[in-house]
């Protein structure tokens, strides 16, 4: 029977939420890895029973766990992320050179067609690849070695590589995003990279249109239109229709264009979702009203989705990796909050209900559609 499995990473463990195709009645399992920060969990598109999890701790450092049975049991795999060669330096907050130091894995992106191949986006920003199911990891050094690498600077949350988009129509192409360096693209399977930030405008930079240095919070893509990308930036919602070469703003009538996640409807590549946040210092919804905004026109024209969401006294945040969609019909949309709620909409955003309300702060949400 078809159904969905929602993988939730929180500040103090992981939770797995499952439901049948109706997505009305939910089972909650967890916490897995109790006490650890779960930055991200994601299942392999090639084998839904294969799930990777990034768990980290101020005491014990980084651990990567792998499940081969859909999250019932887990095994620790490789956790050594060693930069290639002499690491060198990037810019520190005060502009001084600072050595590259591994801190944690922010994002895991399994290959589209091989369960044993998985990419990891880490802080300080770099991309690693494993081809043996996570046992060993090797950096793709061309990214950090890009000529601008020494100029990259962390955002307030750290210099994390948080988004990895694999192009389903071109195995050699991949987009990644770094806070606060911007978007980069490879067309040769990770050997070389180019910055893809033309059209971005960031007032916190001395040159607001600089080639790198933009605080990109998240990028998203529909698999049927991989040349069209959507971006939630520190401020501004953007889109590109040429694989990231050029970006235009599509914030339109949003109440604020600050936010973290952005995602695309599973069946309509021009329907996108964001959650506006008041500002870069006030990380909660404007007016205390939790509203997902949906555009059915690929941006500019947005509608507030409020049915089932708190419309007063709500001051949670929704982090960049904490929104996902399923591939059921109608498309389901999910997001988690720093207040520990995970909301689900089984009807493309028209109505919402919490699956759970009182988890630790939610760091990431991913969905597996099980056939």
């Amino acid at each position, binding site marked *: 029977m078809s159904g969905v499995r929602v993988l939730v990473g929180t500040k103090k463990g992981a939770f797995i939420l499952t439901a049948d195709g109706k997505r009305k009645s939910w089972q909650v399992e967890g916490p897995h890895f*109790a*006490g650890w920060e779960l930055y991200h969990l994601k299942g392999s598109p090639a084998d839904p029973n294969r799930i990777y999890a990034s768990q980290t701790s101020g*005491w014990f*450092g980084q651990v990567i766990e792998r499940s081969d049975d859909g999250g019932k049991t887990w095994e*620790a795999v490789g956790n*050594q992320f060693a930069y290639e060669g002499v690491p060198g330096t990037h810019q520190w907050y005060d502009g001084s050179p600072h050595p590259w130091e591994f801190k944690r894995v922010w994002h895991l992106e399994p290959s589209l067609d091989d369960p044993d191949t998985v990419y990891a986006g880490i802080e300080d920003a770099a991309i690693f690849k494993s081809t043996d199911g996570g046992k060993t990891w090797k950096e793709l050094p061309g990214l950090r070695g890009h000529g601008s690498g020494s100029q990259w600077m962390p955002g307030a949350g750290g210099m994390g590589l948080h988004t990895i988009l694999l192009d389903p129509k071109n195995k050699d192409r991949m987009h990644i995003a770094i806070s606060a360096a911007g978007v980069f693209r490879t067309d040769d399977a990770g050997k070389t990279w180019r910055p893809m930030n033309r059209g971005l405008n960031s007032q916190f930079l001395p040159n607001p249109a600089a080639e790198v240095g933009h605080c990109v919070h998240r990028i998203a893509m529909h698999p049927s239109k991989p040349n069209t990308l959507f971006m939630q930036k520190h401020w501004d919602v953007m889109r590109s229709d040429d694989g990231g070469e050029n970006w235009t703003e599509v914030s339109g009538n949003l109440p604020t264009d600050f936010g973290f996640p952005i995602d695309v409807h599973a069946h309509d590549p021009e329907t996108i979702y964001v959650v506006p946040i008041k500002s870069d210092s006030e990380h909660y919804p404007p007016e205390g009203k939790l509203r997902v905004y949906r555009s059915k026109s690929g941006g500019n024209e947005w509608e507030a989705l409020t049915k089932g969401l708190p419309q007063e006294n709500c001051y949670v945040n929704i982090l960049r990796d904490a929104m996902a969609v399923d591939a059921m019909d109608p498309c389901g949309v999910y997001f988690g909050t720093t207040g520990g709620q995970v909301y689900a909409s089984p009807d493309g955003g028209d109505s919402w209900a919490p699956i759970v309300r009182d988890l630790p702060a939610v760091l990431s949400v991913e969905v597996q559609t099980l056939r």
Partner: protein
Amino acid sequence: MIRVVLPAPLRRLAKIDGEVSLDVVAPVTQRTILDALELRYPALVGTTRDHVTAKRRPFMRFFACGLDLSDDPPDAAVPEAVARGEEPYLIVGAIAGG
């Protein structure tokens, strides 16, 4: 046999129940104890000390016989009572964070 006591999160990670007993070839030092521990339980590699530098992670502490050995040289001999297996070598998470 050397006795080692781990904090609960590391016992769960390595699927260990209770105390660990290790064969450690002399000289018995903190380095040889941790090497033997990681050889037996590869999941623990990198969790108490850095992969590359082998330095103690900042919020880990190593105690034995009522002493804090955390900042002792890793190749110094541990107390005799630990080497004889009479007292455990304690790996402890420091008071930190939330």
